[in-house]
């Protein structure tokens, strides 16, 4: 990292690429979309490094990967043929490749699948809080919503997640 505290793009990709991929995978629920999300995020990192002010690098990266994810979700909604089904019962299980990747990482595919069933308005705050380890303040800033809304969405997200995990027999 240079003396001015601004990392190089290569340093961000090498040192924080795993963090970005982990968040991307939890948000998207599959390997292919996670790869695309990381690639696009790193592209935005490259463009944005000139304006980056040293601080919480992972917070900044979280904001970028979240915005890229939400942009992509909005694009998919504008193209209904690629949109995710609204009904949680219609959500397809993770692909075989995703399962393999999950197993390789020691991840319970059932938990990931349950996360993927959450509507994005709840999924994103839960992932940012419990996976990216961001504070409520940061999540509010990233999503541009009041902190009270963040609190409500995290809580409802966890409740929905618990119900889904119960349905899958993961929890009692």
């Amino acid at each position, binding site marked *: 990292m240079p003396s001015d505290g601004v990392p190089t*793009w290569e340093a961000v990709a090498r040192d924080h690429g795993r963090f970005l991929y982990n968040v991307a995978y939890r948000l998207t629920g599959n390997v292919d979309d996670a790869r695309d999300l990381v690639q696009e995020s790193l592209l935005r990192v490259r463009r944005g490094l000139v304006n980056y002010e040293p601080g919480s690098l992972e917070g900044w990266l979280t904001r970028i990967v979240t915005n890229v994810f939400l942009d992509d979700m909005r694009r998919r909604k504008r193209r209904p043929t690629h949109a995710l089904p609204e009904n949680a019962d219609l959500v397809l299980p993770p692909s075989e490749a995703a399962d393999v990747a999950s197993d390789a990482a020691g991840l319970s595919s059932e938990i990931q699948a349950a996360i993927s069933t959450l509507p994005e308005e709840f999924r994103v705050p839960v992932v940012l809080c419990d996976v990216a380890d961001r504070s409520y303040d940061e999540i509010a800033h990233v999503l541009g919503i009041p902190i009270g809304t963040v609190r409500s969405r995290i809580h409802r997200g966890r409740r929905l997640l618990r119900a889904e995990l119960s349905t899958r027999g993961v929890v009692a």
Partner: protein
Amino acid sequence: MTEHGDVGDDDRFSAWLDGTLDPTTAAEFAAACTSDPRWARAREELVEVRTLVRALEVAEPPPGFLESLVATHEITEDAPTASADPVDIEMARSRRHRRASSGVAALAAAAAVAVAFMVPSLGHVKPALATDIRVHQAGVSSSGDPISGLAPLGTGMKFGR
């Protein structure tokens, strides 16, 4: 504190577990969970799901994925258009192809011009060559050279007959 409905619906529960409530409210929640089984059960349910998600291992990127991204970046940095983004590789490749094509076209045009200049000069050579042959034949007949006289220049020669 919530007195009606499902106590688990109180969104301050998660905030409490995440340590974002003020100390006074947090103390109230702690007391309620100690004295009321409903609060205790709601707390346990949330703790369980929160723990499950937080305990997920880091999802590792596919082998070589990040390295390939960095390598792509370094390649584009080495190129003359150093500011090009990774996604602009195709554009850069297209530009290179256009430059190469235009170079070939320029060479072809130069060759065509050269040929155009050469063709008239060849036409100019023909009469001179014929003149030389006639001069040579005249010289042969006057000098009596037996070899040149057998086969005058410019005539077809057939062997094996």
